[in-house]
């Protein structure tokens, strides 16, 4: 499984490196312009556009990873490797999780450096508020909550692709049915999230707790169920 993560990363490290470089350049450009009180110029717009395009292509790439396995010739390589569907999907999913964590860490570090620099340059007008342990916990939970939402969406997309290539493979409009399945799964998860499982009353009052542990458990169960059902179909029901 880790070999497959390595394989996935070998393909994308140049893309990530270029993303980091563009992000740092954009940050330096915008930050220096802000300090010099200059408006963004053509270079700034170009850098922001490239960064936006890279982010969009990363999201599309992450969504299309299972599509490539199932609907392109690469599937003949990936699905004949001695990996179960669970390990194959696990490796792809873990690679995405690591990529997202890496993006959050890099963005977080660069923004923190910006804040530190501002605090050091203009101590009279800006100072970093002391960050308590509870604040850090809240921040981590907000990021985790957003990431979990993204991972759920990704798994829904993956499940739809696998459904199109397994249960609905013999149907003339299998892909269309899979799109309908995606909408249906989304609707069901929405209903479950809103009404039955997760109460969205974030407890801002409790120190260091934004989402109660019980709700985290429910979120992870939903992600787990989506993962297991997708991996089962990938393991047993896919017919290339």
């Amino acid at each position, binding site marked *: 499984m880790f070999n497959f993560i*390595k394989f996935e990363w070998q393909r994308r490290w140049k893309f990530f490196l270029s993303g980091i470089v563009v992000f740092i350049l954009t940050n330096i450009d915008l930050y220096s312009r802000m300090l010099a009180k200059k408006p963004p110029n053509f270079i700034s717009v170009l850098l922001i556009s490239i960064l936006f395009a890279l982010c969009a292509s990363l999201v599309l790439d992450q969504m299309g990873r299972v599509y490539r396995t199932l609907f392109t*010739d690469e599937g003949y*390589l990936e699905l*004949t490797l001695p990996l179960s569907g669970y390990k194959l999907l696990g490796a792809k999913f873990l690679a995405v999780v690591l990529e997202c964590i890496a993006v959050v860490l890099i963005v977080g570090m660069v923004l923190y450096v910006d804040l530190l620099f501002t605090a050091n340059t203009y101590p009279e007008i800006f100072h970093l508020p002391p960050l308590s342990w509870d604040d850090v916990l809240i921040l981590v939970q907000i990021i985790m909550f957003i990431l979990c939402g993204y991972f759920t969406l990704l798994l829904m997309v993956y499940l739809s692709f696998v459904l199109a290539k397994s249960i609905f493979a013999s149907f003339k409009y299998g892909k269309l049915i899979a799109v309908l399945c995606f909408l249906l799964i989304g609707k069901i998860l929405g209903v479950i999230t809103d009404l039955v499982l997760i109460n969205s009353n974030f407890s801002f009052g409790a120190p260091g707790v934004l989402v109660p542990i019980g709700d985290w458990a429910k979120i992870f169960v939903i992600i787990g169920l989506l993962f297991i059902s997708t991996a089962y179909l990938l393991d047993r029901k896919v017919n290339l």
Partner: protein
Amino acid sequence: MVAERKIGPATKQLVSYLPTINHLPKWMTVDKCLQLYKNFYQDFDAQLAEERVDLVGLKGNQKITSLSTGMLGRLKIVLAMSRKAKLYLLDEPFNGLDPNSREKVLKMILESIREDCTILISTHIIHEVESILDEVLFLNNGQIALKGNVDDLRFQKKMSIEEIYKEVYENV
């Protein structure tokens, strides 16, 4: 079922599959393909594969996108036949290959023959492989049209396998 086991990671370790299409990712180089096979297949002989890559005139740093159909065919056969698998499934291994490449591919297949393995070749180019076949199976619309031992069929029909092939598919 393969070797009395349900299809899964264990059976995939037993089978070496060569598809007709290019299944190798376009971003990879020849060396990375060898590395990939080495990482995933316990029975992959990396040293033998490197020797064969040289033998068929490929270089480790060549990108998949830069390879011609013939070079790609040779690389695919190097990867598939450098495994010590129990079953080799070769789907049209001679497709798009020039006569020199076909000769090299055939040589590699012959070198890989072992007592404990089976090589299943699906091909329309009969005359290239006729000399190495033990058994043949002619399929028509997913049904077996004719099957048997090569020597027996030749003896019974007084024809070469290629002629039998033409006879079987005459009306198709």
